[in-house]
């Protein structure tokens, strides 16, 4: 089975992705949503909360399991995808699109993230 790993994103080993720029989007990868299975619940920070790279920022639950979400970047949350509270299955259906979770305004440029090739190799 092969999973989508878009070239223009960067990745954490714990399967979160982020876009490039000063204000970035954050979500989980296609591989992660497939591993979790049917996603039924998300606990996400609120607008204005601070994220610290590498720390847990929320919780995602599938029918069978509970997992922490880890921040790929440090900064302030400027938008939360509230659509996910009613339709958590969007993370399964479209993990890089409608299944995005947060927008974050970076404190500093992110470092130590994997590029698409390195992440693809990790999940191979």
């Amino acid at each position, binding site marked *: 089975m092969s999973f989508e790993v878009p070239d223009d994103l960067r990745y954490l080993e714990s399967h979160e992705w982020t876009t490039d720029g000063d204000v970035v989007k954050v979500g989980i990868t296609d591989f992660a949503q497939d591993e979790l*299975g*049917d996603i*039924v619940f998300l*606990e996400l920070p609120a607008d204005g909360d601070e994220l610290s790279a590498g720390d847990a920022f929320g919780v995602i*639950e599938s*029918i*069978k399991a*509970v997992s922490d979400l880890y921040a790929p970047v440090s900064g302030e949350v400027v938008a939360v995808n509230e659509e996910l509270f009613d339709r958590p299955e969007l993370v399964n259906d479209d993990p890089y699109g409608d299944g995005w979770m947060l927008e974050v305004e970076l404190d500093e440029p992110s470092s130590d993230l994997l590029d698409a090739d390195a992440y693809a190799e990790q999940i191979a």
Partner: protein
Amino acid sequence: MTERSPPLHGVHEDRGAKFTDFGGWAMPVTFDSIREEHAAVRERVGRFDVSHMGEIEVAGPDATALLNRLTTNDVSALSPGDSQYAAITTEEGVMLDDTIIYRLPDGTPAGEAVNAIEGMTNGNLGEPDGDPAYLFVPNAGHDEETYDRVVTHRDEWGLEAAVENTTTGWAMIAVQGPDAESAVDAAVTAGDAAALPRFDATVADVAGVPSWVARTGYTGEDGFEIVCPADAAEAVWAAFEDVQPCGLGARDTLRTEMGFLLSGQDFDPDDEPRTPDEAGIGFAVDLDTAFIGRDALAEQRDAGLTERFIGVRLLDRGVPRGGYAVTDGDLTRIGHLTSGTMSPTLEEPIGLGYLHVDHAVDGAEVAVVVRGDEKRAEVVEPPFLDR
């Protein structure tokens, strides 16, 4: 520990199943998605490979007496082709496992049921004057300790019965759902398994394979469990090729909606020691039989319960899980959960666990502690679905 594999492992791998370790067995947890598989069983029909279930065969002049002293129900009430749910308890009445006991055709030699059922057709269930014979089904990973327990007690009590652990000789395939009868009818090549009343069992050929077919299951739907020789499992599985394959993930959500116990999780001799009455299966206890644990259970029945097994439905957002505390909504602990999930049928968060009897009342308001927060919940007497 070396992981045990069901005979269909390769077939499931080719079908793209995801696997999980369950009781020491590498079993499929999903084939497509829990939601799809769950819906197939509730609305149509699904098939499960449950070959992780153990099989112990007991036969001989004292087979009935032996099993009657080791299980909580009245084994002497069974005729060939009957099945019975029971618990296996310690002297203290603590459940080691729960099991289904099938009475096989009389005269079936222990360890030979695979061969003995070959050639039998429906209506010819063995020799009428043969010794009683039983097949019973411990849960995954319990077959060896259960076998040892039966043999040790047989010897201690000086009873005459042969006991064999035939877990690796059998595969077990469950076909469950409102359309299970027509699916089984289409797959049966000899015998009349599709006409079985609920909880009865018989010998029938499925796709030409002599099998022990029972109208039993663990989903709350109508359905069948087919015990067939391990080396012929592929043919039996393939006979249901149009039926949705389902993994242990859907098996768990289906049984949770019904409030059925999961051995090792909703009760466990070490981590969750419970009596059958606490676990809500007092109906499977016959105090008129002299089984191990009988006196302790009689005493508990006189004294009354402190906690009992019941369901909760979360009213706030969240998902209840095994291990979460249950409070009165005001920080006083009144019990805990042992199972929980988002119900695919109801699309509601549901859990099962043990609550103090004062709170274990249908409709009572309680709270489930999710990551430190009390979430409002309502007590529900299972099943969560009408079936």
